[in-house]
């Protein structure tokens, strides 16, 4: 009986519990979006949709994380846009990392991927077909037609080397293109940890030369870990623990080979820095391409072109080398553009957590003023650790906007530094007067997702007149964002082709002035930029409500000027040096 009563009590209890639970259960929690989080496009505000899956892009950066927290594990790899088959539709090249000790890796090693644009918003992976199924610990990419044959070639940096892949006709399949590794034949060598790289004609001979950033010297076999003694946790070592390496400058000899001119150019004389970003552009409007280099925890280099392939570092005293307080930047990615209507390119450099993305406003004559606070970029970017960065006109209003990808380098940053490892990317719209306003919350779901952002490159891959973005993530999937901004603003897409003799065919180094609707917009074609990545070289110029560009003045890399008149809006134009403008067929 006692048992019976007990059993009754238990049953009653269970029943009561069930009732309690049943009665007490609340409706399932609902996700409550922030009041101003935009769930759909808003007219006039940039809006990006994740098109990765729909576009058949399925690239994931190799996760090489180990308990040693080796520095390369968190540096990521880049992404590049290259129209390798010259069909007018940008294809997508994804640089792949890999295991640090490949011989111990089970199974096939991961390779880079090339996705051919199907011209309908989708891509087909053609890596093997084009001969790019190469493995190695890949880092950065630069796209350029180094032999002026009309087809873009690929240059890739690795943890321990560099590689030049020449775009050639596929002998096995007439009409098709493939890539041949010509590194040795081109006499290119750099047995160091190379990162960002960029093409530019530094000596005015009409051929693209090559700058390669080197980061630091590491020895995996004798690697010293860094330990946070308070928490007894291993963490990724700062770059300052390692000796840095001189960067490289290779002159294009015009016969398929290059000469290492690091010493003769004066670059070897510049104190070494842990290079992560490079941009090749005429910064002082003297007609010669200069080189700006972002170094991690060291002064940025501003290598002013003296002519004849010689450079001197003007960084420290130009005002574009350190923060306004004289501190080193943890310089990663670089962007440049005319953000204030001055016609001069200002510089943006992404920086460490709690440090703002540096904005150096170009005052002419190789002088810069700190503009991060006044631009509005500083206060917004301070909360993130920035890597890739691009300036582009997301809403086609004629003003340059800014996208930046973020992610910490310390895997256990949340515990050790109270900062998240995965971070949101950000988008800011420019007002054309040097100021920017953040619109990340209204720009689509991606900007609310957390990733370990690294590479970033812009291209209008679907040729719809709106610039799209590709983001690479450390140990994560690449994301392709399609620009779906609702706008009636009009645009021009300008594809510049140099004569291949006095100006390089890619027209890297050209300055373009677009007169439209009473405004003058100035754009530049530069080499390098962002972090480890290569954006589409075609200029997508927002015209606002104007129906045409009244005049487009091109200052070609060789200094010659050419004006093209009355270019109708909402279409692509091919501007070939010495020829009249040619409308590019829509499809």
């Amino acid at each position, binding site marked *: 009986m006692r048992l019976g009563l007990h059993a*009754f009590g238990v049953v009653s209890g269970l029943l*009561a519990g069930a009732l309690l639970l049943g*009665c007490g259960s609340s409706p399932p*929690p609902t996700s409550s979006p922030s009041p101003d989080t935009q769930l759909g496009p808003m007219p006039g505000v940039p809006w990006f949709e994740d098109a990765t899956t729909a576009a058949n892009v399925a690239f994931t950066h190799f996760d090489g994380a180990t308990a040693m927290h080796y520095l390369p594990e968190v540096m990521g790899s880049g992404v590049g846009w290259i129209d390798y088959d010259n069909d007018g539709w940008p294809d997508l090249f994804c640089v792949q990392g890999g295991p640090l000790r490949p011989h111990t890796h089970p199974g096939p090693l991961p390779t880079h991927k090339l996705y051919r644009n199907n011209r309908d918003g989708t891509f087909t992976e053609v890596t093997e077909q084009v001969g790019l199924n190469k493995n190695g610990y890949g880092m950065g990419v630069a796209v350029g037609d180094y032999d002026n044959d009309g087809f873009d070639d690929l240059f890739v940096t690795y943890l321990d080397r560099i590689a030049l892949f020449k775009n050639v006709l596929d002998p096995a399949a007439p009409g098709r293109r493939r890539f041949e590794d010509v590194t040795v034949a081109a006499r290119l060598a750099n047995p160091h940890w190379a990162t960002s790289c960029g093409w530019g004609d530094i000596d005015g001979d009409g051929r693209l030369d090559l700058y390669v950033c080197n980061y630091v010297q590491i020895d995996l076999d004798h690697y010293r870990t*860094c330990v946070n003694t308070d928490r007894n946790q291993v963490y990724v070592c700062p770059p300052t623990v390692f*000796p840095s390496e001189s960067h490289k400058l290779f002159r294009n000899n015009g016969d398929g080979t290059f000469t290492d001119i690091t010493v003769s150019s004066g670059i070897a004389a510049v104190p070494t820095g842990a290079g992560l970003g490079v941009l090749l552009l005429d910064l002082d409007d003297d007609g010669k391409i200069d080189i700006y280099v972002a170094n991690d925890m060291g002064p940025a280099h501003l290598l002013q072109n003296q002519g004849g392939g010689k450079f001197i570092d003007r960084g420290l005293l130009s005002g574009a080398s350190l923060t306004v307080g*004289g501190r080193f930047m943890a310089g990663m990615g670089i962007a440049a553009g005319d953000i204030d209507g001055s016609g001069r390119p200002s510089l943006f450099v992404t920086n460490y957590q709690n440090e703002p993305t540096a904005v150096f406003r170009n005052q002419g004559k190789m002088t810069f003023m700190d503009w991060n*606070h006044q631009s*509005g970029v500083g206060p917004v970017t301070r909360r993130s650790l920035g890597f890739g960065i691009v300036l582009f006109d997301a809403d086609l209003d004629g003003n340059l906007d800014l996208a930046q990808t973020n992610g910490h380098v310390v895997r256990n940053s949340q515990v050790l530094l109270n900062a998240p490892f995965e971070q949101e990317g950000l988008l800011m719209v420019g007002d054309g007067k040097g100021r920017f306003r953040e619109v*990340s919350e209204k720009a689509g779901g991606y900007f609310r997702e957390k990733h370990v952002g690294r590479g970033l490159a812009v291209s209008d891959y679907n040729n719809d007149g709106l610039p799209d973005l590709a983001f690479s993530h450390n140990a994560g999937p690449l994301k392709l964002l399609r620009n779906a901004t609702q706008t009636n603003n009009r645009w021009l897409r300008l594809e510049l082709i140099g004569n291949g003799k006095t100006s390089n065919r890619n027209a890297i180094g050209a300055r373009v002035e677009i007169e439209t609707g009473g405004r003058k917009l100035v754009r530049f074609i530069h080499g390098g930029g962002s972090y480890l990545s290569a954006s589409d070289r075609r200029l997508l110029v927002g015209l606002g409500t104007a129906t045409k560009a009244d005049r487009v003045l091109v200052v070609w890399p060789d200094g010659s000027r050419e004006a093209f008149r009355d270019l109708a809006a909402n279409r692509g134009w091919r501007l070939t040096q010495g020829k009249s403008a040619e409308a590019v067929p829509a499809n």
Partner: protein
Amino acid sequence: MSSPSPPLVPAVASRFSRKRLGIVIGVIAVVLFVAGVFVWQNSRPDEKRTLALKAAKEGSFAFAEEQLKSALADKPDDVEVIEALARGYLKSEKPHEAETYLTRWVELRPEDPEARRLRYEFYPKARKLSKAYPDGRRLLDLTPTDGRLRRALVGQAVSLGAYEDAESLCRECLRDEPGDRDLLSMLAECRRARGDLTEAGEILDRLLKDFPLYTPAILYLDSGQPEKAIPLFREVLRLDKTRQRSAGYQLAIALERSGKAEEAKQVTAGFRRLQDVEVFADAIKAQPDNLELRVRLGERLLAEGHTQDGLSYLHAVIAENPAYGPAHLALAKHYEQQGQAERAAEHRKLAGSTP
């Protein structure tokens, strides 16, 4: 002699009554339980709300969250619950949710400074600086004597490019602190941004006279007047030990822009030393037993002409490990450059290398 048979009836009766007793107890229990549930059900919403609020206040937000939401579903304008949710989500770092409830709180209690203050402080952390500012302005209306807030808003307004507003706030602040140099600097910046270079110049002149400080020097430099900036930076370097690096850097730029390249280089070397020591200090902290790192810092300092600093770093390494070759080698190279062959040879020998 049979023993009396046991009474059958009482046994059965006892069994029966036991059974009945069990049933009765069972029925009573069920009745009590149902009644309890009924009473509990009727009193539950308030009780649950109270308990949840208490739990949230005591820091058990995870436990209280769903109960609070449920209470809010019953009474959507319950400010106390909304406040608890807002605070809970702020603490648990769920920005979207926090903003939702903060905003609801502000909507329901637009005059409540606490709600406004919390949202004002939340926005910058949630990447919404431009939204913080209007909240700050409203908060200032609600707490007009808050001088610290007014001052903070001046800086925010300047950073947002709201120069007109910044100027007005700045002038209000200056009424209380008429000689404040940072406020005067910001006022000059506002006037300059609004195109009044004359007043901006006058303010700078006043700052120059009264406060030979960093900010006006920067403004002079940025406005293309490096000559005026130079004496200010020199004064900062002389007076302010905390700004040696930044003032040194800016002085070097000002000197360069004034055509004094040689002096610019000398000043550069000075602040580069500070940078090197700072950066290497971080690296050494990360790898305290890495002697090679300390040798590298010593070499860097020697190369940049900071002989005493460089030597002291190298000798400190040798004191720690007298046989550490790279330190001896670095010293040998240094003494060779100084023409002190004997000392160089001594260190080379200790390094185990030949020239």
